[in-house]
């Protein structure tokens, strides 16, 4: 179920502006990969190309390949809708659908995929909510609107929504940046659980978080304003935080800039 992801020679543009240049990286299955780097270095942009969300922005385009278990998701004839059903995403700010109940939020993806069987939907809703460590808190109010939950709960609801469709890869774009420390901890614990089953890529501004949750870390940087962001290095998280291969990485991690 969990699949590996390989990005090759990614060049990413917003209109004429090149946001990211020459990114090549490999994400092994059942593994957490963290993207770190200063603001504007293109780490979120790279993440969004991994499930073809980048092209939702008008004028945005991508060159290069992204291989999901060897198959290019940018090949001609591949429908981005199918890609996004296989590669799930959790966003910076929790975004449950406000008009839907907690349960309907969780099963929204399955509904889109055409699942109508009620008992199956109930079953998946419970499994996904348990998987997101939210079941105990919401099992008695599944029909309340998703917006009635706290921020941290909403984010776990969004994670439940993403894993309900059992994606091959789960992308997380700064999933804790809008949350308080306790909710953040809950999500980090959850990531540690989820990686047993899922391939996870997480963008984070918080280096301690990257060190805590990830197996490998990619450091992105940009030469200056208006320059494209680049992947400086990607390696085991332990190595990146103890003995990085590049001076820029060391400077960033030790807080000398950024």
């Amino acid at each position, binding site marked *: 179920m969990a699949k590996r992801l390989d990005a090759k020679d990614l060049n990413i543009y917003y209109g004429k502006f090149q946001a990211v240049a020459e990114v090549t990286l490999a994400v092994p299955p059942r593994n957490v990969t963290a993207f770190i780097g200063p603001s504007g270095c293109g780490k979120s942009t790279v993440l969004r190309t991994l499930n073809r*969300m980048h092209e939702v922005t*008008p004028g945005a385009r991508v060159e290069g390949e992204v291989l999901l278990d060897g198959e290019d998701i940018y090949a001609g004839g591949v429908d981005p*809708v199918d890609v996004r059903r296989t590669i799930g995403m959790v966003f910076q700010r929790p975004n449950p659908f*406000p008009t839907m109940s907690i349960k309907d939020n969780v099963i929204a993806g399955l509904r*889109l995929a055409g699942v109508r069987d009620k008992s199956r939907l109930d079953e998946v809703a419970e499994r996904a909510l348990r998987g997101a460590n939210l079941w105990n808190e919401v099992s008695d109010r599944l029909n309340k609107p998703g917006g009635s939950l706290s921020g941290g709960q909403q984010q776990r609801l969004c994670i439940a929504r993403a894993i309900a*469709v059992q994606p091959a890869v789960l992308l997380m774009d700064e999933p804790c940046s809008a949350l308080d420390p306790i909710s953040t901890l809950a999500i980090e614990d959850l990531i540690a659980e989820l990686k047993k089953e899922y391939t996870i890529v997480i963008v984070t501004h918080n280096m301690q978080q990257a060190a805590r949750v990830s197996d490998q870390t990619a450091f992105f940087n940009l030469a200056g304003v208006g320059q494209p962001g680049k992947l400086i290095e990607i390696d085991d998280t332990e190595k990146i935080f103890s003995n990085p291969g590049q001076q820029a990485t060391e400077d960033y991690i030790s807080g000398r800039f950024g």
Partner: protein
Amino acid sequence: MSMKDEVVSRPAGQERETGSMMGGMGEQEQERGERPKRVGDRVFRYLTTTSGLVIVVAIVLIGFFLLIKAVPSLLADSTNFLTDWRFDTTGGKLAFGIRDMLVVTVLSSLLALVLAMPISLGIALFLTQYAPRSLARGFGYLVDLLAAVPSVVFGLWGVLVLGPAIEPVQRALNAGLGWFPLFSDGNVSLAGGGNIFTAGVVLAVMLLPIITSVTREVFRQTPVNQIEGALALGATKWEMVRTTVLPFGKSGFIAASMLGLGRALGETIAVLMILHTATSPSGFSFFDGGSTFASKIASAASEFSEPLPTGAFIAAGLVLFLLTFVVNAIARSIAKPKKEKA
């Protein structure tokens, strides 16, 4: 109360925005009554309060005017004001009822609404979700332009072009669905299409820009993170629209439609030009003629001299006034609970 802090800490030069907060201002002034007031603040407060009062006073005065002028005529009415279809103010004896005006007004407006709502929804969705940006701009401008066309031009178009053009459609509907009251034989001839049906279609075209422009703005405000959330789940464009844009914009769309309905109820000249005069009571058919409140009053305006006959028309105007009031109140109550977290 963070709003209070905001108001207090606002520098003196920026009172421009406080106008919109007028509602909450009264209590706050009392709370800190002993503090010295800045002159600019005070002057501006009176100015905005006065502006606000003008509206209230105007509405109340119009209501009073209608009521005072209408009551003597209503008392002199020799027939039932609500259930009689005749509107006779000539001769010595007043005999006027609003039944048919109410029927024609409501039927034509509802028909307009039923036709305009889905089309406006489609245009708004097209402009905000499907059209390429460059096209959306020009097209949106065109829709707004439609709102600027004078209604007398719509009237001309209805009489000279649309009426004759849709006469065959009306005949077909009448022939095929004549058993259904709305499509049964009307009290005017189908020739030329001078009936509620034609008026409703013309009104629908007039409502399009009103409903579309409000709906478009509401749809445009759908939070991006909602849209991306749906797309990231593997929603197609239409599924994304269905799960995010439509639920988000629903109340705005309904409120816009009510706004349009208010407009349709009060539309005068186009309807006056289109509808043929009826000499028998309405049978609740789209192929009836007659007149709406507005068109009836306008058509008689040149003969307002005697107070009692004039009062009869004012009484009709009062009913229209109340009708639009109710429609607007409904629109308000629907539009109100729209508080979404972005």
